[in-house]
């Protein structure tokens, strides 16, 4: 009698598989959905942490060559240039505490990647946006031609990336950010200038007006405490010609709003799936209990108490929930992990998978919820079962 629930489940594999599949689907939806919501939140938090600048200034031409929303949303850069004189003028704007510039360039088709890679040159002496992130993974200064690669560029330390016929040794890999910065290649400003020369020697038109030694792509500003960020951005827009100064915070808020919408949709879908599955499970258990009335009546006749009978049914649903839940979590995890690149591409939002400990916590929480919902859906049937009239069932055969 101790293993009656297990025997009941193994004796009717068709019924067990059908109910189990429903629970697998439930836990897959809950676990996969939760991981996605956490990843979107993680991506936004990571983007927020990386954007250490209050104001970003780009040449006005950047507006036509790249989508500025996308520049802030994903950290994607483009290639556009302005004179260093302008950068110096911007840095001297009233209210600016720190200023640093970067140079961007897109390779044609780097040897590594069969597609253009974004090369970002940083000024190591003044940089305060990317340097803290680089220091997490790479503790020293970059030399000439040394490059650091984002987490999604599969080039190992010691290998080289060939950009415009120039071999650049990879000296480090950076931690994942969940943004397109993960596909970037980072180096010093001098290295980018060398690469710009190499490109022009190969005859590529990079649309640089003037001397490559004398250009920058973007200026990042940190505003002094107590100074209104918008007023600094306005001042730059008024006093420096042909540039576009944008507050990063307003973009972050915009992203957070759109992310909130996506998150709400995912949560609503999960709740709908759960309500539907709970109702289906309840109906399935009620129907199955109805079919098994005779079996339960016989068990009552041979001396099983009402409570024990209800416990047998609850134990069956508990076992189903446990196995279905574990399989669902494994499948949900495998699918989400395997296709995270595709999900990220489809959502076009910062997407950073949670760490192992958080994933384990999510898995445990999913299992707990599944193991509560499964027995809850069979509780009504178990209660009804304990109230049946055995004599009538056996006499009338219903």
């Amino acid at each position, binding site marked *: 009698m101790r293993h009656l629930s297990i025997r009941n489940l193994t004796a009717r594999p068709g019924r067990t598989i059908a109910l189990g599949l429903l629970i697998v689907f439930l836990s897959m939806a809950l676990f996969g959905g939760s991981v996605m919501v956490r990843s979107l939140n993680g991506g936004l938090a990571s983007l927020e942490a990386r954007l250490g600048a209050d104001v970003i200034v780009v040449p006005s031409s950047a507006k036509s060559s790249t989508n500025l929303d996308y520049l802030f949303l994903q950290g994607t850069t483009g290639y556009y240039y302005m004179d260093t004189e302008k950068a110096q003028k911007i840095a001297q704007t009233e209210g600016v505490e720190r200023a640093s510039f970067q140079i961007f360039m897109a390779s044609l088709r780097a040897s590594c990647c*069969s597609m253009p890679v974004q090369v970002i040159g940083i000024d190591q002496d003044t940089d305060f946006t990317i340097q803290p992130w680089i220091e997490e993974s790479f503790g020293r200064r970059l030399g000439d031609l040394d490059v650091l690669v984002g987490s999604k560029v599969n080039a190992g330390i010691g290998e080289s990336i060939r950009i415009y016929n120039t071999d650049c040794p990879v000296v480090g890999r950076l931690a994942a950010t969940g943004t397109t910065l993960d*596909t970037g290649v980072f180096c010093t400003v001098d290295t980018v200038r060398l690469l710009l020369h190499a490109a022009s020697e190969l005859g590529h038109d990079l649309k640089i007006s003037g001397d490559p030694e004398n250009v920058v792509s973007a200026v990042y500003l940190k505003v002094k405490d107590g100074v209104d960020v918008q007023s600094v951005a306005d001042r730059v827009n008024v006093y420096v010609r042909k540039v576009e100064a944008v507050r990063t915070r307003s973009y972050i808020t915009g992203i957070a709003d759109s992310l909130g919408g996506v998150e709400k949709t995912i949560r609503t879908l999960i709740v709908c799936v759960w309500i539907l599955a709970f109702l289906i499970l309840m109906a399935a258990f009620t129907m199955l209990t109805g079919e098994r009335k005779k079996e339960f009546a016989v068990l009552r006749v041979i001396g099983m108490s009402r409570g024990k009978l209800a416990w047998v049914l609850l134990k069956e649903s508990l076992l189903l929930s446990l196995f279905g839940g574990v399989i669902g979590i494994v499948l949900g995890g495998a699918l989400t992990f*395997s*296709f995270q690149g*595709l999900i990220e591409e489809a959502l076009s939002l910062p997407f950073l998978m949670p760490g192992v400990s958080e994933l384990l916590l999510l898995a445990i929480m999913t299992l707990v919820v599944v193991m509560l919902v499964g027995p809850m859906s069979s509780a009504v049937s178990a209660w009804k079962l304990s109230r049946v009239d055995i004599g009538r069932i056996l006499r009338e055969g219903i």
Partner: protein
Amino acid sequence: MKKVRAMDVTKVLVCAVLLVGLFTVLHPCLHEDGTKGMCASAWTGTVAVAGIAAVLGILEMFFENRKIRTLISVIMLAAAVVCFLMPGVFFRLCMMETMYCHTVMKPGIRILSVCLAGLSLVNLIGLMRKKDVHRKK
């Protein structure tokens, strides 16, 4: 009439899905000029191994001898493991993880390989258990 085993049919179906997938959605990265990316070697290797697995799966359906069936199951299990390791371990993929071979080809091949390996393993355990039952008799 010869008995058709559901497990054999399922294994052949998974191999067929993998092969059809490789020639449709699970293709390697393509450059603008029509040439294939460096992930093409992994794709070619997987096509070859999946093809061998499919042929073996079809052959298994016609054999009744337990030893031959066990041998075929072991080879199919090994083929599934090789298919799993082909993209990224035996052959390098393109270096940008946002590229098609990383986002679609590799996960697709790996999920189908796990299915094939799981089925082959279950089949193998079933064949081994039959052997034990025969010995006990």
